[in-house]
């Protein structure tokens, strides 16, 4: 099945480190919140209320705008059973959708295999950033990972134009001629050519892109812009992935978290605007997640690993609003005596995205059926 540009596209944004959900969607009228949080707390008169009980972090004003426009779905209390609050294990679970055992196939990789079963397009799945996330890694599924769009490919360090040409020529010769000398060498030769093919396809993407939207000068904004550039080039990409780090706010949360909120909300709203400007807003949804929420109590300077966080879906075709339940803040309901309980299983949300947006059967990927939500307008 060849991919068509009319198909739906999913952009996944990972907030690495465990975003503080309570300080993102703030329960600004709840006494338990103010009891538990001494220093790392959002002041009642500064937050941006979205209801009688909840308010947006004041530094995430662009999110407030998207929410008000009905383009932001907030999934409250998302999580998984038996959280051990480990970054690695947490991410592992999110990436493989396997909370009970250590899985080895990424959930998006499996989706890509469904979307492009013959591995015809090396760009069906594109990661923007260094290193392929495990969510996209499945053996035999070609995925392209672009650290730097301008310099993707091999022999990119050779500055001299002619030298680089000669080098690529030799490279092509070596890898092309490897084919036919044995199965393994064949395979590696083919893979080398795939790299060159992907690089060729991406070669002028950066130059072709034009937009009036001015993204901010930070990493997540640049990555969102690169996603826009590739997407607008119509190369058949169905799944984009990128991540934004720094959310492990054990210390100094009050000075650092606002910038994270500011950067990520700005980057996503700019991306939405860019889609709008290019008439591509209807077919793109952005899913934002983090591996876990943070501890109920603060530690005087920051917050420690917890469970029960939040996730967000953005898009023109998204039905904005609140989904699932905000976890109970009553101390008698705290997990391990210190954490929020999750109220909805993340695998249900994956199911919603896979089945309702990408039209891929979710059951084999999330290994079962979980409560889904209906975040998309039809």
């Amino acid at each position, binding site marked *: 099945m060849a991919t068509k540009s009319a198909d739906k596209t999913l952009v996944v944004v990972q907030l690495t480190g465990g975003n503080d959900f309570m300080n993102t969607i703030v329960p600004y009228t709840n006494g338990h919140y103010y009891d538990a949080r001494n*220093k790392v707390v959002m002041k009642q008169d500064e937050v941006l209320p979205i209801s009688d009980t909840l308010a947006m972090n004041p530094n995430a004003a662009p999110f407030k705008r998207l929410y008000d426009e009905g383009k932001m779905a907030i999934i409250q209390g998302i999580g998984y059973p038996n959280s051990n*609050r480990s970054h690695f294990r947490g991410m592992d679970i999110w990436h493989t959708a396997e909370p009970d055992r250590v899985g080895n196939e990424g959930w998006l990789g499996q989706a890509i295999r469904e979307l492009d079963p013959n591995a015809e397009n090396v760009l069906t799945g594109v990661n923007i950033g260094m290193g392929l996330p495990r969510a996209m890694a499945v053996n035999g599924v070609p995925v392209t990972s672009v650290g730097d769009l301008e310099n993707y490919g091999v022999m990119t360090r050779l500055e001299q134009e002619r030298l680089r040409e000669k080098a690529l020529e030799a490279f092509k010769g070596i890898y092309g001629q490897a084919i036919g000398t044995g199965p393994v060498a064949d395979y590696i030769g083919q893979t080398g050519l795939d790299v060159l093919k992907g690089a060729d396809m991406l070669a002028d993407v950066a130059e072709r892109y034009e937009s009036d939207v001015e993204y901010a000068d930070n990493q997540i904004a640049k990555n969102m812009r690169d996603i826009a550039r590739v997407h607008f080039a119509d190369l058949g990409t169905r799944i984009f992935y990128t991540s934004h780090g720094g959310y492990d706010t*054990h*210390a*100094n949360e*009050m*000075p650092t978290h606002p910038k994270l909120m500011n950067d990520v909300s700005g980057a996503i709203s700019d991306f939405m605007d860019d889609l709008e400007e290019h008439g591509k807003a209807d077919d793109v949804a952005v899913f934002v997640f983090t591996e876990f929420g943070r*501890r109920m*109590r*603060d*530690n*005087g*300077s*920051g917050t*420690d690993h917890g469970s029960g966080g939040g996730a967000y879906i953005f898009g023109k075709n998204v039905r904005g609003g609140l989904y699932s339940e905000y976890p109970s803040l009553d101390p008698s309901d705290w997990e*391990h*005596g*210190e954490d929020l309980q999750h109220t909805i299983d993340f695998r249900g949300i994956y199911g919603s995205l896979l089945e309702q947006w990408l039209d891929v059967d979710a059951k084999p990927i999330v290994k079962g059926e979980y409560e889904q939500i209906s975040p998309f307008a039809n």
Partner: protein
Amino acid sequence: MSRPHGLLRAGYPYLRTLGMRRVIGYPTDVGWTDDGNALILMRSEGAASVRIWPIEDADLFTDDLKGFGSYGAGDGQMVWPVQLITDGEGHIYISDEATHRITRFDPDGQFVSKFGARGDSDGEFDGPTGISFDPDGNLVVVDSKNHRIQRYTVDGEYLGGFGSHGSEPGQLDLPWGVHVDELGDIYVADWGNNRFQAFSPEGELKIAVGKLGDGEAEFDRPTGVAVDAHGDIYVSDWGNNRVQMFNSEGHYLWSFRGDASLSRVARNYMLTNAMSNRLREMGRIEQEKYLRRPRSVRIDSDFRLFIPDYESYRVQIYQKDVVVLDRTQFAAPLRNPTLEVT
């Protein structure tokens, strides 16, 4: 410039534990400022900086953890910092054995100047480690991989040096920490030879103490050395997880193995973390008080003994408890040991 005649050695009560993981990352050396702050030099792979931390220990995390410096080879940055010292004006000097240079910071942690270039000629370094001021305000620098000691002005002008590679008395093998006492004598942790040595200002060997082992006056890779105003010598004994103390003649007196308590920040951390408290209840807590891989030892003019407890993310502090005696209160020096009752 003369030494006090004697002191009532009463002991070393434990004073305080500073810091915890996340506040202090791998403390490798410590200095102090006049206004009651410790300057904790932190080094691990890919990270290096100085944390400014009140010796009284902070009550809570503050929102503005103070510090300066970052990992890197640029001016004011460091890659493999080893020792930190301050001068009379509060200027801070830090050696860096990866970039082969000594960097000077002002009291606010702003970069002032640097010197040093890699090589083995006079005035060049290969991995400078220990640094200390001599009585004239010049810098004595351990040039570790050249196995020698050099002297510089604070502006980096080479003044001379001595030392050669080997294990004979007076020779050095990958020396690490250094301390120059107020008489100008130079004490060096002779890492590879598992001993410390003291040299006259001219480089003449005065004492050499230690061999490989874990007994008294034996070492497993001594890292740092400090000498207090009484002439007592402290040596951090890395592999044996302790600091050994010697008198000015190099006779073993005491060992410090660590008596850490929970610092105030750690206490506060524990109070907000139910799970870690449960784990602690199941673990062997006694081991927690001991030193792990101390990389330096320092003593200040108030006779507070600072031990950067490298692998436990903290600084342990003892207080020397002594009364200095005058001539009439202290007998003439003994040449020989005696079994007589005093």
